[in-house]
């Protein structure tokens, strides 16, 4: 039976008769009416009659106490009456626990919050720039230290990460490059046909894949695949205090965690970039053969003739730089994780966004540099 109540007033004393089950699941139906009664009863003495109560839980007891304590003007004439011992005991039990508590952090002006976020964001970008630079410094000095004492190099760990971040990434990088090579060839063929210069598709595919797309695609996929994995791995170790434990045991987390990952990625990325470039060329070549009737033999011959090997080097040289920045940013964001799983998620996202951004920036610098030295 659901909760119900009725009331009457006599000799300026208000009487509230409650009946049924005053349990949490029934309170929603009567709460509004009860609040009205509570507001009206302010300033009067109140007797709450419990005789018809058949069930009560802490929520019900709390609500009854709330009505009773709605104002300070009640005198000793106000009281609970009747009801079972158990119900009375429960009502008494909740009495000291009636103070409200805030649910959310204190309210603040949204405009100020906006400014606050803006400032925080700008300052945060500045600070994290400095932090990344100093992290790079630490990684490089650790590398130098380990180089003088190569026994400290964790070869097993490096091999593990070479497999995980490098070998395992080959299928997806190969496939994506193949498709991009094909798309570039197709677009080129379509445009160049207007000038009756379809044969230049070979140059277009060769140059763009070798100089840019191969290495860039490898880097982008690695940032999404391995950079984020580094952040998640190191970040969850940070949450479980494993990093702190390492420090107290005299192990250097940079040496144990960051170096192997960085070295592995720097070693593997050129290989992945090479793979990407080759598959990009194959994709382009296939489209050329299909759509342009440029046979693979002709395609290769023309490539040999018009595209120098320096184009290949111009692309592949960038790979270790990209790899370094992806690994360092991934590890750095992992080390910045603190406390909650939420922070882990944020840092993983940040890691991917930042490393992609930096990869593109570095790529742009290389392009300007090559332009200057005419490479």
């Amino acid at each position: 039976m659901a909760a119900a109540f009725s009331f009457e007033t006599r000799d300026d004393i208000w009487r509230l008769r409650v009946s049924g089950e005053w349990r949490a699941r029934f309170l929603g139906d009567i709460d509004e009416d009860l609040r009205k009664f509570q507001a009206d009863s302010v300033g009067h003495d109140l007797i709450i009659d419990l005789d018809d109560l058949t069930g009560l839980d802490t929520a019900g007891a709390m609500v009854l106490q709330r009505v009773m304590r709605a104002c300070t003007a009640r005198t000793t004439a106000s009281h609970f009456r009747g009801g079972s011992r158990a119900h009375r005991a429960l009502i008494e039990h909740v009495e000291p626990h009636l103070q409200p508590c805030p649910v959310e952090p204190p309210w603040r002006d949204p405009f100020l919050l906006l400014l606050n976020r803006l400032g925080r964001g700008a300052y945060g970008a500045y600070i994290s720039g400095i932090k990344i630079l100093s992290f790079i410094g630490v990684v490089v000095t650790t590398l130098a230290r380990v180089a003088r004492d190569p026994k400290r190099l964790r070869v097993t760990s490096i091999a593990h990460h070479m497999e995980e971040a490098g070998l395992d990434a080959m299928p997806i990088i190969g496939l994506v490059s193949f498709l991009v090579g094909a798309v570039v060839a197709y677009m080129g063929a379509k445009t160049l046909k207007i000038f009756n210069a379809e044969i230049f598709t070979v140059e277009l595919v060769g140059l763009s894949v070798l100089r840019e797309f191969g290495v860039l695609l490898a880097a982008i996929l690695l940032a999404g695949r391995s950079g984020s994995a580094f952040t998640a791995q190191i970040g969850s170790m940070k949450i479980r205090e494993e990093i702190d434990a390492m420090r107290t045991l005299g192990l250097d987390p940079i040496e144990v965690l960051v170096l192997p990952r960085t070295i592995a990625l720097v070693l593997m990325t050129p290989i992945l970039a090479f793979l990407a470039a080759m598959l990009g060329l194959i994709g382009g070549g296939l489209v050329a053969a299909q759509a342009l009737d440029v046979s693979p033999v002709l395609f290769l011959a023309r490539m040999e003739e018009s595209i120098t090997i320096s184009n290949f080097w111009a692309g592949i040289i960038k790979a270790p730089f990209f790899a370094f920045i992806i690994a360092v940013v991934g590890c750095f964001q992992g080390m910045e994780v603190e406390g909650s799983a939420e922070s882990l998620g944020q840092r993983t996202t940040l890691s991917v966004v930042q490393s992609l951004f930096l990869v593109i920036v570095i790529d742009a610098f290389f392009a300007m540099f090559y332009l200057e030295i005419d490479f």
Partner: protein
Amino acid sequence: MLNGGDQALDADAAIISIRGLKTQFDSVVIHDDLDLDLMRGEILGVVGGSGTGKSVLMRAIIGLKRPTAGTVRVFGEDFYRVGEAGRLAIERRWGVLFQGGALFSSLTVAQNVMAPIREHLNVSDKLAEEMAALKISMAGLPPDAGAKYPSELSGGMRKRAGLARALALDPEIVFLDEPTAGLDPIGAAQFDELIVNLKNSLGLTVFMVTHDLDSLYADCDRIAVLAENRVIEIGPLEEVRRADHAWIREYFAGPRGRAAGMSHA
């Protein structure tokens, strides 16, 4: 029975009864042919060495780890065979405090406590907030803890917040996994007192996994000892400590066991 109200008649009945329970992870058997009864209105302490499967037993009862064999009857119904609606109805009648608190990290403490209230009860926000405030205070937290995020709390406060959430729907049974582990002795003693208080005033039935000997002496009406994949001994503390089993002897006769026994004598 305060909280039970209409069920007061069957006060002696087992509220949970487990028969022939078997759980395993792949081929590793954790429990085999385990029987256990939880009586209405009691505090049952479950002890046993690390890795004997206390947490797994609790998870098997509350439906998080499906047993390979055996039955778990809760409020007289076979928990693993009542269907979706029946399960939900049962789940509303118990609260669980996990070993690590398991608070939702993106919600404040008050919002954590309000989560089950909002989900299961048809109440206004205002009433939900009042109910949350009540539970937070009953769990022994100061009011200003309500607006804090779990990451801003100490371990002990997190336990209390977890208890507040477990109590949110005025459950008839609460499951506690090592409630006092990681608390300072004063905090642990307060927590013990709190649980006994809540049991007495709300008529709770409590299933408590614990390593804490002081808690056993202070809180528990009965004790179940888990070893060799089953409950090897169950009964009031005095009986259990006299049992003839190597692990039990060592447990109660060891320096800590004796110290705890003395201080509660």
